[in-house]
């Protein structure tokens, strides 16, 4: 009996044992199958923990001409992301996030319930808020550190620099124009993530080779500051609607300062009117008015055989052309070309243009670069309007010669004037002088580029002399005269066109274009004020801007001032004496010519 039971037990134990043999075999076979024949499982695992983290290299820095930072990128912000598939309770998560970040819970809830693998909850959140969200310890909510663009000088040169959007892409200004250089390259970093989608065990995103390139501008922060201060003061003093001022180095075409008023802060561009974002000196054409007379005069000397002493009859203040009458602010009789410029006679200018004819006037203006883009490295440049001379009516030829019926951009105007200041060579204006890599080594540099010779050196010199007289006593720009430096210039007062194509009453653009020192111009300065209220004459409104910018900039650039002889010994140290004497001599000899 016992034996039977024992035998039965042994048999049944064997059967149970066989079951285990079977199950262990199945387990072993499945393990062998998975681990020896399923390499795709590893691919899946890699895909899951490595994908979807694309890093963008750090955006390049923008420096001024002296290596001072104007736009920098720092990595102190984080963006909050979510992985809806890992969120068990989207509603609670949405509510917690909306409370912490002050965003709409409903929209977020919809996004969280979308079943997408990845969404942005909020981009570029400051350290404090991201800390708050981290403390909530929400499952499926992640953080990505991101770069944020910062403009250390705030509003300074805002319209030139532009700004970047939340995706680290340039949206305006230099940031937009040079975006391909500045932006860091995208690269997939093999970032490993754990089950909570947090990355771990990866080198931080510091690889410089993915960083964007740096820009070195021709803009000098100090000159920019001088320019903006002077411009803002005038805009305030004369209650102008807006204003702009440009400083250019005439020999190279490098833009040293480019100012607009009112300003905006690129660090918080969204809070400002979009209208302020534009670099209007490049993008917006305006009718320049009398500043154009210097180019008509240059054409007359170059092509019409005139000299500054050639005389024209100025019709005693009123000159009928067809149905239109051109007026001067004061009646003049016979006047030399020099005096026409000095006193800014419109009728004189018309006579000059009649003498050289529309074809040559057109050629002269085209040669100076009007009616075509300067190709300065700023976005949205306008070509202005200069219609073909065969389409001019008789009055057009006349008014264009004194700057009405033609529109130009500030950058065109200052570039053309630079050609006069530098002896007749039209230069290509530029604002970025070099591109460097993240180690500071230059990868590209942009020097002065000649476009064409517009007028001979003699013609340019003759025009300069005429412009110098403008700043002297009795000239329309006498208020632009500088203490210690000789200067040349030309005023401009243009009536604005209203919406219907008519000249609007009481709406003017007052401007002054000039350069200094007269003998060897170092800076060309253009100041334009739009709709000044208290006075509309360029000679009154825009000259102080020129004077301040020129004086302070030349001082800053260590251009030795011309001292009157009696002050010389008193204020200047001995070792600087010979150079100054030379300058004094030069200017004295020029003074004799007047």
């Amino acid at each position, binding site marked *: *009996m*016992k*034996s039977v*039971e*024992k035998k*039965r*037990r*042994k048999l*049944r*134990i*064997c*059967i*149970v*044992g066989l079951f*285990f043999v079977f*199950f*262990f075999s*199945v*387990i*072993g076979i*499945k*393990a*062998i199958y*998975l*681990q*020896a024949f*399923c*390499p*795709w*499982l*590893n691919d*899946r*695992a*890699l895909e*899951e*923990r490595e994908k979807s983290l694309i890093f963008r290299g750090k955006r390049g820095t923008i420096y001024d001409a002296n290596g001072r930072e104007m736009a920098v990128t720092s990595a102190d912000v984080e963006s909050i992301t979510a992985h809806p*598939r890992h969120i068990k309770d989207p509603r609670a998560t949405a509510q917690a996030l909306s409370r912490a970040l002050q965003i709409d819970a409903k929209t977020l809830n919809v996004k969280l319930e979308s079943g997408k693998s990845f969404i942005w909850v909020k981009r570029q959140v400051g350290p404090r808020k991201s800390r708050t969200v981290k403390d909530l310890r929400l499952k499926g909510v992640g953080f990505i550190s991101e770069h944020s663009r910062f403009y250390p000088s705030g509003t300074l040169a805002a319209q030139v620099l532009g700004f970047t959007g939340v995706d680290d892409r340039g949206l305006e200004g230099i940031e937009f124009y040079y975006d391909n250089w500045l932006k860091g390259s995208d690269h997939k970093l093999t970032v*490993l993530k*754990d*089950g*909570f989608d947090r990355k*771990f065990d990866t080198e931080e995103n510091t690889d410089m080779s993915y960083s964007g390139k740096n820009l070195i501008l021709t803009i000098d922060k100090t000159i920019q500051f001088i320019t903006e201060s002077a411009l803002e003061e005038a805009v305030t003093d004369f209650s102008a609607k807006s204003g702009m001022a440009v400083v250019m180095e005439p020999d190279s075409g490098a833009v040293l300062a480019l100012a607009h008023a009112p300003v905006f802060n690129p660090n918080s561009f969204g809070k400002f009117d979009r209208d302020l974002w534009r670099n209007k000196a490049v993008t917006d054409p305006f009718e320049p008015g009398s500043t154009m007379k210097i180019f008509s005069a240059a054409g007359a000397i170059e092509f019409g055989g005139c000299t500054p002493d050639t005389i024209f009859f100025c019709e005693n203040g009123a000159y009928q052309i067809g149905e239109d009458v051109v007026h001067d602010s004061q009646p003049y009789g016979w006047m030399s070309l020099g005096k026409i410029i000095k006193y800014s006679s419109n009728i004189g200018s018309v006579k000059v243009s009649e003498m050289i004819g529309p074809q040559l006037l057109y050629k002269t203006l085209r040669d100076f670069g009007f009616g075509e883009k300067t190709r300065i490295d700023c976005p949205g440049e306008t070509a202005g309007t200069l219609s073909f001379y065969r389409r001019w009516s008789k009055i057009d030829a006349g008014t264009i010669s004194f700057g009405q019926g033609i529109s130009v951009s500030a950058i065109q105007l200052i570039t053309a004037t630079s050609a006069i200041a530098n002896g007749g060579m039209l230069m290509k204006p530029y604002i970025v002088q070099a591109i460097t890599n993240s180690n500071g080594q230059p990868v590209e540099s942009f020097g002065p580029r000649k476009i064409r010779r517009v007028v001979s050196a003699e013609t340019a010199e003759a025009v300069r002399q005429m412009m110098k007289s403008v700043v002297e006593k009795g000239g329309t720009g006498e208020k632009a005269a500088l203490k210690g430096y000789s200067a040349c210039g030309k005023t401009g007062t243009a009536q604005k066109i209203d919406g219907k194509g008519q000249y609007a009453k009481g709406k003017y653009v007052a401007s002054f274009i000039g350069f200094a020192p007269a003998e060897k111009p170092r800076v060309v300065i253009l100041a334009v004020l739009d709709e000044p209220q208290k006075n509309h004459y360029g000679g009154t409104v825009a000259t102080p801007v020129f004077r301040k910018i020129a004086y302070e900039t030349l001082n800053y650039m260590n251009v030795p001032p011309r001292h009157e002889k009696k002050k010389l010994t008193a204020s200047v140290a001995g070792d600087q004496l010979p150079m100054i004497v030379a300058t004094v001599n030069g200017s004295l000899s020029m003074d004799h010519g007047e």
Partner: protein
Amino acid sequence: MKAHYKSDKIPQPPIAGSIQPGYDVSLLFPVLFLVGIGIVMVYSASSAVAAKKFESSYYFLKKQALFSMSGIVVLVLCRHFPLKLLRSFTYPLLVLAFLLLAALHITDLGISVGGAVRWLRLGSFSFQPSELTRLSLIVYLAYSLSKKQDRLENFYVGFLPHVLVLSVFATMILLQPDFGSVVILGIITWIMMFVGGVRISHLLTSLLVLIPVGCLFLISADYRMQRIASFWDPWQHAANGGYQAVHSLMAFGTGGIWGVGIGKGYQKLFYLPEPHTDFIFSVIGEEFGLIGVLIILGLYALILIKGIRIAMDTEDPFASLLAMGLTAAIGIQVCINMGVTLALLPTKGLTLPFLSYGGTSLLMNMASVGILMNISVNSGQLSADNGQLSVNSYQSSVKLPVTSEQ
């Protein structure tokens, strides 16, 4: 018959005793090896989780090391605990298991984790009554089946009482709820009834009744149906139901043949929900590869072979059934846990004996091994009480190594 039995059996113990001084090395070695690997793997698998939850990556390592020490003590105690006494403790053990299970629900000592009450708070430790229940039930079945072995053919004697006891415990454990433990208890009961000599027709017919009941049970709850669906095609449900299975499979696949190296696995980093308990085998698969997996499987096979050998070689029916029950319990846990990690079975939270983190589980399994060793060497003691003649020489031969151990 008796003579044959004597001559067959008597020479064995002294030989076994001389080779294995009191402790069956062929059983002890794989167990200690697994416990050792367990400590290392619990640390590897849990350090990231521990660092996040407890701000110390050693949290689970320290506790598991402590459990292992206690486990060895328990093993030694059970190895020397008189089997006779154990048999007489059958009903007190059953009552204790019943009271502890009841305590989960009627006292405030129950710890609720994720909606399930499975642990009792005992001072600074927690205890899992269902683990003790398993041991108690095995002892009871061994006792009852061996006592009634002449009448087991009778449905009311051999089948019904055991199934009734099982259903009492099953109901209480389902209340926690812990479906996985109930399945294990059921399988153990059936195996022990089968080995004990209950009629196969009773066992199979009852199974035929249970299958439709089980199907109804599955259909009755939506989440169970979903679980089955995600078991069928885990990749289709990788985002929710199949998440654990998919990541476990990825762990094995990533491990390949040689593994990624200890501590270098990825799936334990919050991809696998319980890397140091339910899915420690996946972590081993990833870090030690197929080689590691087969070694672990081999160690369990050694334990099972040894356990089954003990059950077969033991004359005493109680000891034999007890050995079979304890061995089967370990084997079933291994099969279910590995089956789950390899996506052969639907996901169920069950630990891997000796390897997984968990105090109660480790202590109970070590106790099982201690009892198995006890049976392997001392089953003669019981035979003596049963009035068998082989006692004296057997006893003395066994005592020698035990004393020599000191």
